């Protein structure tokens, strides 16, 4: 029985981090669908979300809700800036060139964050205390409930946005075929800008809810970005359901691996999973097979 409780405990904490991976993965997918590129700065959005929240909530003592909204908005604007100032004006619009620009942007943001917030890890108090709630013998932190709740709300809101609203439909049209969308009179460039805005916001939300659990430092972005990307690959790149499933799965596998095998090699495990999936099922577990160019 204690063994079972332990497994349940690991699964719960895996689902907690997995939820944030899912949000990061959705961010990757939205930009990929709009532009066909992998945004390597996605992890930096997460880091920035945590950093802004610490600044607005921890230091400036703004009310939590205000700090939350402000942080999300700030990172969303940074996402927008990335698109408007670095990607759009680039002389070469080749995919690989744009991907490498986001790599440059990611290093740049990292360096800038180091200058602003310093090198040491920063902490943020959990949203509502640290008294664990017991469920079936396993302890669950109130912050985990916040994470589940907010992730669920964000995913539901996004789904509604993509299915119900005109703008959401337009974004899906751009993803399906940029040319046809342009011919149908959809302002493609504005949709691309919006995808960066949304991805910035998603990354920020992930960073804000995750920081009380893990702490955050200027160089945390790359690892979080890689986790989100792995989750996206795991679930099938470009699909929202895939991103959520992949994120949760990765979080649980990682947590079980850390708990049952070795916590030092937790991150190794995540990337081994990524490599194995790339090798055997490049389209992702829920994907349609390898994406190949002909």
């Amino acid at each position, binding site marked *: 029985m204690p063994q079972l409780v332990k497994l349940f405990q690991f699964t719960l904490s895996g689902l907690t981090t997995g939820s944030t991976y899912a949000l990061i993965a959705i961010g990757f997918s939205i930009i990929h669908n709009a532009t066909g*590129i992998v945004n390597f700065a996605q992890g930096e959005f997460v880091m920035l979300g945590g950093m802004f929240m610490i600044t607005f909530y921890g230091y400036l003592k703004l009310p939590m809700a205000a700090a939350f909204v402000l942080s999300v908005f700030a990172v969303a604007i940074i996402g927008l800036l990335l698109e408007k100032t670095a990607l759009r004006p680039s002389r070469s619009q*080749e995919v*690989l060139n744009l991907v*490498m*620009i986001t790599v440059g942007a990611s*290093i740049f943001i990292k360096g*800038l964050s180091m200058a602003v917030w310093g090198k040491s890890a920063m902490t943020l108090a959990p949203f509502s205390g640290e008294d664990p709630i017991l469920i079936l013998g396993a302890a669950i932190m109130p912050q985990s409930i916040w994470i589940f709740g907010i992730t669920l709300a964000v995913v539901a809101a996004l789904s509604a946005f993509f299915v119900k609203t005109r703008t959401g439909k337009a974004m899906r049209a751009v993803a399906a075929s940029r040319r046809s969308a342009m011919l149908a009179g959809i302002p493609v460039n504005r949709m691309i800008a919006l995808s960066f805005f949304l991805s910035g916001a998603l990354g920020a939300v992930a960073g804000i809810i995750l920081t009380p659990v893990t702490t955050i430092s200027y160089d945390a972005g790359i690892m979080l970005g890689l986790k989100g990307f792995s989750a996206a690959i795991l679930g099938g790149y470009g699909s929202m359901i895939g991103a959520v499933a992949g994120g949760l799965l990765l979080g649980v596998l990682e947590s079980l691996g850390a708990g049952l095998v070795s916590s030092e090699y937790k991150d*190794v495990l995540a990337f081994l999973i990524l490599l194995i999936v*790339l090798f055997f099922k490049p389209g992702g577990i829920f994907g349609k097979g390898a994406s190949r160019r002909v």
Partner: protein
Amino acid sequence: MKHLPLPVFSLFVIALPLILSNNYYLMALNIAALNVVIVIGLNLLMGYAGQISLGHAAFFGLGAYLSAILTTTCGFPVWPTIPAAMAITAVVAYLIGIPTLKLEGHYLVMATLGFNVIVYIVMIQLSAVTGGPSGFAGIPRLQIGGFAFDSDLKIYYLFWAVAILVLILSLNLIHSRAGRAMAALSHNEIAARCTGIDTETYKVKIFVISAALASLAGSLYAHYISFISPGSFSIFFSLQAVTMVLVGGMGSVWGSLFGAILLSLLPEVLHSVKEYNVLVYGFILMAVLMFFPRGLFPAGRSFCIAMIRKKT
């Protein structure tokens, strides 16, 4: 005319220490020579196979740690260990390359990045073998018979001889049948396949060769500094290598030489910037990609040619 740059550059390399008095600059140039080896190898992959690796620091690190462990811990002789480390690294690259090189560009980027992270974590965690975060010390220095490469000057000539050799081999390669096949597949993969080129095998081979070159640089680095730690082999160094290729220009071997030297010496010149190393690299990478997508070296060369034509 066509063969002029090589002897001119070689003479310059030979003569340079005569002007330089400061050992500090020699050391920077020695590291630059190793970067030249890595960057030329990486450019063969990026410029000719159209694939980007963000894991070359891992191959560099594999070479360094394999050399360190095999010579110091296992007591193997230094010189045979270097090709052995290259061979092991090549096998690892082969195993990664086979599945990922079949996929689209950014999958290799991610797979190699993930691989780099794995190698880095193993270097830190496997402290019984690697010395962990505090590093691996006491690696034997290079020597031939009774002659020890015990000064920066001696190392300078050794490393630059290796760098120029790699340069020559690469220049030979790109003007050979295999080089043309590589150029063909990077420009138009479908046409290359229909012309009889086994593009998948070629990509894997270039990836393996480029990883082996990084391993060579890693071994030389370990035996030169005699102390290595995981910090030198993080993904940040992979990004630096890619930046050097892009600044020099993809597909230009001379450009790689230029890019590697420029960006290896830049931090030495801009001492005050050192704290913001990361920031500056990120900025350079973005700016070059945005405004000179073909690289600084080719852009500069076209500019010079245009200026000369204007004058005459």
